[in-house]
């Protein structure tokens, strides 16, 4: 009888445990299913422009903190069934266009690339729309940002094309097709466009007509924006390697292998290259040889999580933000790492520095501000337009 009771209790416990597991994990959404966006900010004349997670361009006057919004980016109506956008799932908001790329700002215009497959140009004064590309149709989603050079806009698209547009009129000037999606941002230096693709190639294209100058095949896809300095192209990849290539010839100079993907662009400060990696380490390398100067995270104060945000540079400081919401500052003169702030939400968007303050957008649709010198967390600015 006792054995029978024990069996019954065991069975009930097993069933209860199974039901709890099902309820907690099964019915919960898999994180990372909804497109939300992670646009960084661009500053011009004391105004910070950012693609808000509401799906519209927002302008914040950093002097008086007044805010202004452009019109909402339009959702592609044919993107889904029953009026739902195909880019959203698992309870996502269907009326919002995610913005991933950081806006590009000139004296008169701001440019925003949307996940709806359109590029928009606005006036800096009143955020009125000047042109949209393409005018009537939609391309594949834009995930990477744009590069502005000599009245031209360069951008990579999920359809695998690199586009060059006339920044004044929005007219398509030239294009180049890679063999897979492009989610990265291009870099233009000395008349050459450098961009990575999911087809596991780094491309160097002539900026004038987007003809191929060279391409270099690697073992992983690329989402990170290339960095060009002193005739060398530095780019991280999904094969866990950071590559240094000769910018002119496209030949390999050195590689450095980490433990996970390189998601963002590295920076060079005071003769050292700093690259954040999704393995939770920041690698300080010699840019000429790839030799390790220091690996931050091995013996430092904090347990570091993935670095997906584009770092920012202010004087001798490099500021990094980890995905779990910790903001770090590296003093490049002493190679000292300091925790500036610990936030509750995750940080995935690029960091922007202006007048000693680092700005970034968080998922509560607000701009966070941290004083780089003192580490003081300033009052956040909401981007909710109401």
């Amino acid at each position, binding site marked *: 009888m006792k054995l029978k009771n024990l069996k019954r209790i065991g*069975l009930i416990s*097993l*069933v209860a445990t*199974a*039901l709890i*597991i*099902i309820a*907690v*994990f*099964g*019915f919960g959404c*898999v*994180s*990372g*299913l*909804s*497109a*939300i966006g*992670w646009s960084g900010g661009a500053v011009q004349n004391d105004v910070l422009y950012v693609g808000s997670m509401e799906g519209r361009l927002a302008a914040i006057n950093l002097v008086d903190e007044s805010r202004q919004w452009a019109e909402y980016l339009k959702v592609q109506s044919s993107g*889904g*069934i*029953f009026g*739902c956008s*195909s*880019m959203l*799932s*698992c309870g996502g908001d269907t009326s919002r266009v*995610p913005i*991933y790329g950081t806006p590009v700002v000139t004296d008169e215009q701001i440019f925003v690339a949307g996940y709806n497959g359109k590029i928009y140009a606005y006036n800096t004064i009143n955020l009125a729309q000047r042109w949209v590309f393409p005018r009537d149709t939609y391309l594949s989603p834009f*995930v990477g940002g744009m590069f502005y050079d000599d009245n031209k806009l360069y951008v990579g698209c999920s359809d695998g094309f690199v586009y060059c547009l006339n920044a004044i009129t929005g007219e398509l000037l030239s294009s180049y097709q890679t063999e897979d*999606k492009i*989610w990265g941002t291009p870099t233009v230096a000395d008349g050459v466009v450098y961009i990575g693709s*999911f087809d*596991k190639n780094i491309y160097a294209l002539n900026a004038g007509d987007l003809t191929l100058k060279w391409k270099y095949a690697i*073992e*992983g*896809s690329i*989402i990170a924006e290339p960095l060009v300095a002193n005739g060398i192209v530095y780019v991280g990849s*999904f*094969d*866990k390697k950071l590559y240094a290539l000769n910018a002119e010839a496209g030949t390999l100079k050195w590689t450095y292998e980490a*433990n*996970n*993907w390189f*998601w963002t662009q590295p920076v060079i400060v005071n003769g050292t290259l700093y690259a954040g990696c*999704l393995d939770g380490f920041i690698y300080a390398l010699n840019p000429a040889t790839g030799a390790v100067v220091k690996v931050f995270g091995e013996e430092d104060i904090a347990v570091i999580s*993935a670095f*997906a945000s584009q770092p920012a540079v202010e004087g001798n400081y490099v500021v990094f933000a980890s*995905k779990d919401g910790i903001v770090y500052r590296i003093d490049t003169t002493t190679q000292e790492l300091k925790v500036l702030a610990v936030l509750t939400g995750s940080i*995935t968007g690029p960091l922007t520095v202006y007048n000693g303050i680092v700005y970034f957008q968080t998922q509560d649709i607000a701009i966070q501000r941290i004083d780089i010198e003192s580490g003081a967390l300033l009052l956040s600015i909401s981007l909710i337009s109401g």
Partner: protein
Amino acid sequence: MNVWELIIQQPLTNVLIVISHAFGGSFGAAIIILTIVVNLALLPLTLSQIKSSKKMMELQPKLAELQKKYAKDRQKLAQEQMKLYKESGVKLQGCMLGMIIQMPVWFALYQSIMLALAAVPEGLLNLSRFLYSWPVVFSAIPMNPYFLGMDLASPNIVLAILVGVFMWVQQKMSTMPTADPQQQSQSSMMLWMMPLLFTFMSLTFPAGLALYWVVNSLFRIGLQYRITGWGTLFKRAAKPGAEPEKKHLKFEQPPQEEIKQTIVDKNGEIIITDKESLKKSQKKGFLDRFFKGGNNGQQDQ
């Protein structure tokens, strides 16, 4: 990373990626193979479930008998039902337990597919923390979402319809015939609700998930067919209120003289116990009278 992610989601996701890489980067092939492999791993549980269902199906007449016999004594009915299950070797707990054990595995598979698909940038970033340090895994990402001309990262209407059709067939094959009108309406509702629900979900989720549901349903259909044949797929559900132990009589059109004979002697010779049949025969009689110009009607009187 929590325990669930560490011991279930992470291994499954990496296996999915490795299979995809082994099949030339075809994520669709990886979904099909992994679904089949997981189904095979759960085969003992699934088989015991189907066999229990089959036995339950065979027990239906006896259960109906018991229901009738102990209609006023629910406790006795439950006791007798349990006794019958025990004697016939039907393990209700085993059947339930099998289902409960399988469900987390299906959820894990679903989560891994969604994770590995990385349809949106956030998904791709999230995927990075699930990857083992095997070089093959890193170089295989991001996966190629195209399979047989379909983008598995977006909803696909063809796959959504197939999900509904195959799920309906599978449900229909395994539906137990029952005389209880309440149970019958419940199973009838389930028969339509589940396929419709999953079709709707397939229209909103990435098609990779729909592909998994299609393969899963096909596997279950094949298994069910091997054990029970087509089951109740081609059988019409019994009409509510019809008692299973009474057979419906089919009346052949008798010769004119015979009709006269039976009508003459009907009080002494014919006893119709089935209400449906009685209704049918009355209806048929009425139609006969209608088409034959009322001659029989006159003779009736």
